[in-house]
């Protein structure tokens, strides 16, 4: 490292020091656009489906953490998503199948063809016992939801064109179905259409070819609200089949609608990226007569808002620009705390990147391929803020494409860089890499054992001799890796009675301990030597977002979605003193107010007191030897040291050393004592890869 003044070097020897940072921006990741969101009031969870068929579950009570996900599939374009029977999740899509998801085992329970062509819409009955789908051929099919499966019950009267939207009357007796140019109201008992309401194709005086009813909502007073491709929000009287009121809200399609449970407010999303809030307000202050009024417009999206949801306290929207936006309704938020802030979730709350420290490799996971890069190098040195000249640029070593339509669930490159393992929903792949000078050869290890079909998480031991695989049935497999082959060592079966998948794994650097965590139960620690369960860290209210075991001390560091961090000594089977201290004192309020979860934890090989962790907007080194900050101290101090004396700096120094230089930060790890790698994904780069938004003229009419 470069020469420094004596003051600085003395500080650095005690402090964090200086790092060379490989700032990587070539991870070409673009999240898929959001197609549907479905809010479950009972569990306060949000299901989100994306255009690649991925379904994600967000726990709104746990700081909006994305706690589960189901990998996508090329042929499974999800068009509708709904919760039924309490907490059962169904989706339907253009392949004509209805799918139920197993939220425990994180796989697809079953899929069933509705035999009506592509499915465009689906809605669960208010009681949750029936499921109705609207198909391409204009048919509406009613399914009975049985405890283990769904069963076709009957067809409704077939309509002329595809059914694009559906809504049940809260009493369950009637259904509104939006099609092309018309809305039909069905009687559920007879299955026949009792009203057909024709929607005006005219759009600001110009007749469009077709008017597509993108969304309908049936209110308990019999009002049907429709949103359509002509930019209209219309209120219909379902008893008479007449139009009551029209709001022209956009120059483009209005694509989605969601009504609150109290039916006093609803939200619509337009193709211009605007979300409008409508509220039922009294016409005058004294009268009881109420009227729907367009109250608030929100412009948090740049592209089509394909879907909206209305939780009791927030408006949720998502669309082509891939952001999930949660906009709390200020009047519904009782405490003006950080929950009342707008949330914009863009990146997955899991790691898509793994790193081989030895060979300085980065493995990037995409939905259908993996990219392996070798980092460059430099011989130059510099001071804080310098960009060093490269003596060798980064190399793209490998582009590994998966076969088949399934998305990759997880992937990992071994620390030695000789192995790559990845898994889709039905197959597990293990590859051996050979490096001969500049040439790389890849050999797939064939004949994977039958039990290794699908993995939720993969991890290599530090010495790359063992492979740990968390399968989606809750079991953990340990495999010994030999040169070009493997041997199954052991399988830890799931705790009796649970099938919860382990989403996160961590292994101690000495290879003796394996920690595994699911979404709700505590963290299990296994003794790899003796192949038995060592202990279980008590379950905490909030899901685990990252896990790691420190070298030498074998302290397990656990980050939770509420931004709490625990340190648990595996040998002692108890929380460490430092963990108790920080729990007693509490974290700095600004630390707790961060809105992205910690996704990766690592350690400095030479400094046992340091913990490195990062979320999407900051990276932090916790120095356990320094005093903890209280709410009065400045948590984030980006200023470089001036000529202040070392003493003052020491006095104000606290344990949390934060850098916000790299963002959005998808991955950060320590390559060696003095080198970091940071993978950034600038939002502008993502936007540049999206289709252009609808252009709105700023000037003139």
């Amino acid at each position: 490292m470069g020469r420094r003044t004596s003051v600085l070097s003395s500080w650095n020897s005690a402090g964090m020091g200086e790092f060379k940072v490989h700032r990587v921006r070539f991870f070409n990741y673009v999240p898929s656009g959001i197609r549907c969101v479905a809010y479950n009031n009972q569990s306060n969870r949000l299901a989100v489906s994306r255009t690649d068929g991925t379904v994600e579950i967000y726990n709104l009570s746990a700081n909006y953490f994305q706690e589960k996900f189901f990998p996508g599939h090329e042929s499974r374009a999800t068009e509708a998503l709904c919760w039924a029977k309490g907490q059962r999740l169904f989706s339907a899509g253009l392949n004509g199948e209805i799918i139920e998801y197993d939220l425990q085992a994180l796989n697809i329970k079953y899929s069933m063809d509705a035999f009506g062509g592509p499915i465009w819409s689906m809605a669960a009955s208010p009681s949750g016992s029936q499921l109705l789908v609207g198909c391409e051929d204009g048919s509406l099919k009613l399914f009975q939801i049985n405890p283990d499966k769904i069963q076709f019950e009957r067809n409704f009267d077939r309509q002329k064109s595809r059914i694009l939207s559906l809504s049940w009357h809260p009493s369950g007796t009637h259904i509104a179905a939006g099609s092309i140019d018309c809305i039909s109201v069905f009687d559920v008992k007879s299955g026949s259409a009792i009203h057909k309401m024709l929607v005006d194709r005219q759009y600001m005086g110009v007749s469009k070819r077709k008017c597509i009813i993108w969304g309908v909502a049936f209110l308990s007073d019999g009002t049907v609200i429709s949103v359509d491709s002509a930019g209209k929000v219309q209120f219909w009287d379902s008893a008479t089949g007449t139009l009551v009121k029209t709001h022209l809200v956009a120059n483009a399609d209005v694509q989605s609608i969601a009504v609150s449970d109290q039916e006093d407010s609803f939200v619509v999303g337009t193709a211009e990226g605007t979300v409008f809030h409508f509220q039922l307000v009294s016409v005058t202050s004294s009268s009881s007569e109420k009227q729907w009024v367009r109250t608030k417009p929100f412009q948090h999206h740049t592209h089509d808002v394909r879907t909206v949801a209305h939780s009791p306290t927030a408006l949720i929207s998502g669309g082509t620009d891939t952001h999930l936006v949660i906009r709390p309704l200020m009047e519904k938020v009782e405490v003006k705390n950080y929950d009342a802030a707008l949330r914009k979730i863009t990146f997955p709350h899991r790691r898509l990147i793994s790193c081989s420290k030895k060979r300085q490799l980065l493995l990037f996971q995409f939905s259908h391929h993996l990219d392996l890069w070798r980092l460059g190098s430099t011989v130059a040195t510099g001071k804080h803020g310098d960009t060093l000249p490269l003596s060798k640029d980064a190399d793209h070593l490998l582009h590994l494409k998966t076969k088949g339509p399934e998305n990759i669930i997880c992937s990992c490159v071994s620390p030695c860089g000789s192995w790559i393992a990845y898994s889709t929903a039905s197959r597990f792949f293990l590859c051996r890499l050979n490096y001969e000078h500049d040439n790389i050869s890849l050999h797939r290890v064939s004949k994977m054992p039958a039990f290794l079909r699908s993995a939720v998480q993969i991890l290599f031991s530090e010495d790359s001799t063992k492979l740990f695989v968390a399968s989606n049935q809750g079991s953990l497999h340990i495999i010994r890796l030999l040169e070009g082959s493997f041997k199954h060592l052991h399988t830890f079966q799931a705790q009796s009675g649970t099938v919860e998948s382990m989403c996160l794994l961590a292994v101690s650097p000495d290879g003796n301990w394996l920690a595994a965590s699911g979404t709700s139960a505590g963290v299990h620690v296994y003794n790899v030597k003796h192949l038995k369960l060592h202990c279980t860290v008590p379950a905490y209210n909030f899901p685990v977002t990252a896990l790691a075991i420190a070298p030498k001390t074998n302290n397990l560091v656990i980050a939770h979605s509420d931004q709490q961090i625990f340190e648990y000594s595996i040998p002692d089977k108890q929380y460490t003193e430092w963990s108790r201290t920080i729990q007693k004192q509490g974290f700095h309020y600004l630390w707790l107010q961060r809105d992205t979860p910690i996704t990766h934890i690592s350690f400095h090989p030479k400094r046992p007191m340091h913990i490195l962790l990062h979320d999407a907007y900051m990276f932090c080194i916790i120095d356990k030897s320094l005093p903890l900050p209280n709410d009065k101290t400045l948590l984030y101090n980006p200023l470089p040291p001036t000529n202040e004396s070392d003493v003052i700096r020491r006095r104000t120094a606290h344990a949390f050393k934060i850098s916000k230089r790299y963002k959005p930060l998808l991955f950060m790890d320590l390559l060696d004592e003095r080198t970091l790698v940071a993978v950034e994904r600038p939002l502008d780069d993502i936007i540049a890869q999206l289709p252009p938004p609808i252009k709105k003229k700023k000037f003139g009419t």
Partner: protein
Amino acid sequence: MAALEEEFTLSAVPLGAGPDGLLGVEQCDKTDQFLITDSGRTVILYKVSDQKPLGSWSVKQGQVITCPAVCNFQTGEYIVVHDSKVLRLWTNEDVNLDKVFKATLSAEVYRILSIPGTEPLVLFKEGAVRGLEALLAEPQQKIETVISDEEVIRWTKFFMVFRHPALIFITEKHGNYFAYVQKFNSSVVSKYTLLLGQEEKSVIQSFTASLCRKFISLMSLSSDGCIYETLIPIHPSDPEKNQHQRVVRSVLLKTVVSGNARNALSVLDQDHVAVLGPPLPASKECLSIWNTKFQTLQISKELPQGTSGQLWYYGEHLFMLHGKILTVIPYKCEMSSLAGALGKLKHGQDPGTQTMPHFVNWQTSQGLGSQNSEPSKRILRRRKIEASVQPEVPASQQLLSNIKKDSEKHIEIELRKFLAIKRTPDFHTVIGDIVIGLLGRCKTEPSFYPRSSLMQLIQMHVLSYSLCPGLMEVALEKTDVQMLQLCLQQFPDIPEAVTCACLKMFLSIGDDSLQETDVNMESVSDYSDAVQEEKMEEQTGILQNGFNPEEDNCDNCDKELSEKPQNTIEETTSCPVIPKRAALLNAVLHSAYSETFLLPHLKDIPAQHITLFLQYLYFLYLKCSENATMTLPGIHPPTLNQIMDWICLLLDANFTVVVMIPEAKSLLLSLYKFVKSQICICSELNKIEVSFRELQKLNQEKNNRELYSIEVLELF
């Protein structure tokens, strides 16, 4: 605002309506379905939204239906009485009325009354009332006589009062009217005598009633054309002595119809009544909706083919016979809002300048409504003690009678005295009555024009156009521009036609006659003499918003325009009208209007006046552009929006005319130039926007190149 929608007929075929019209229109247990009973033998069930009959039943030849069919809301059956004593019950499935359940009663039935939520009642002609179930259990039971001989039931209505059914019926005997109220939780009949007040001779033509807290508000339409209201307590204060209670009636609305026969009245809601009848003796029959709170006519619809003088109101539909055809007029009364009532709001009002409300204060008006019941109750009690005492003649009555005969001077003194008295909640209606009284005399006596009194009344800030409809017409007739200006400033609800008539007059009146008048000049500042040369330079700059047409090479017509820009400016720099006219025109600019109604009237203004007005507006616009805030000097000047709206309106209405006038050419050219420069600016802005976006893209690409770097980071 109350609104009548497009009418529709229920049947193309004329019903068998006799000379007295239909027997009745009654609600059904299903919404939107109504039972129509004609005066012959037929009952028809209609679905109103479909305009289709769902069923039709007739009694045998020789039998006559004597009481309109009703629906039993508890069982869904229909009930009708034919030949006064025979009760028939049937359902939708029955086809032949002859074969359905029949019960012959021992007395003649006046009416069967049925409302949702309770059992139907049968009211006999002798005044006795029975529940239907009890009657059907024993059809031949003896029916007692309640009312006296020669007393005839005229009208009846059935209410639910706090979940208890209550019945009111009105009887008549030798021109005296009696109200009977029977409640079924106490089975007590209370009898009231309706005192008709001064108008003893009038005959009551129609009744309607609604519940108003603890009272039944009985409204009656008398042959003098006025609507009276009588409050009848539901719970008599002293049930023991209920035999000789008397109730008085008070005038609710004056002369809403001419006193012919066949007028009908129906209460629509708390504040609105529907009246059927000719508004003037000679005119055709009209359906009018009146707001009783503001004493205003809300809407009126002419029914040229005449009606049977019957009117039914259910839900949102008004039913009547128009000619021989049953017609339904949907009625809607949205909650009135001040903005809705005023149309386009007046602009540019400083909150401090005028403290008096322009329009009726709703709070006090509501207060009036609640206080209304108080005095009448008191009167009621006083009447019990000594019914013969005449109420004191109010001061306003006194003044009104003075108006009819006194001289202008004397009236003015009287008026001043009257206005000095403390204001009552109904002050605005009283003022309105006084103005109407004055105007009435103006019409009969051409020489009578109490100008100062009228001015004084207008300045009370309580009048609106609808309270004194004739006032502005009279002022227009007398060419009283000062009064018109005052009206324009004060009234929030001037019809567009009148506004336009004022405008016409203001533009056409001669300068010398204007000089004599005393016009309020506060909206005009003396911009005529404040023209300075150096300001003019700025003006052209602002006019074109920094865009210089000479430099613009994309348009060729500009050459022609730029030939004489100096002339254009020369023309527009001095005010084209004298300050007094400017003040009058400003009053027009300030007045509220709705474009659709104003446009047709603007077309009637002569071309040279249009040009003059346009010149004036353009001058104002230039004056506006002189300063950064785009406002005019003065206390209450027209705003830029008002000016621009009027320019657009005038051009819209008279474009073809204006184009042909040589004097208007330069004006049009400068306007055209202005608009074009605006368009150019917008297109330039759009170009800049696109350029910026391209720059941003380039910038992004530059960033993209830095996909990988190694940096030095030090953590502090």
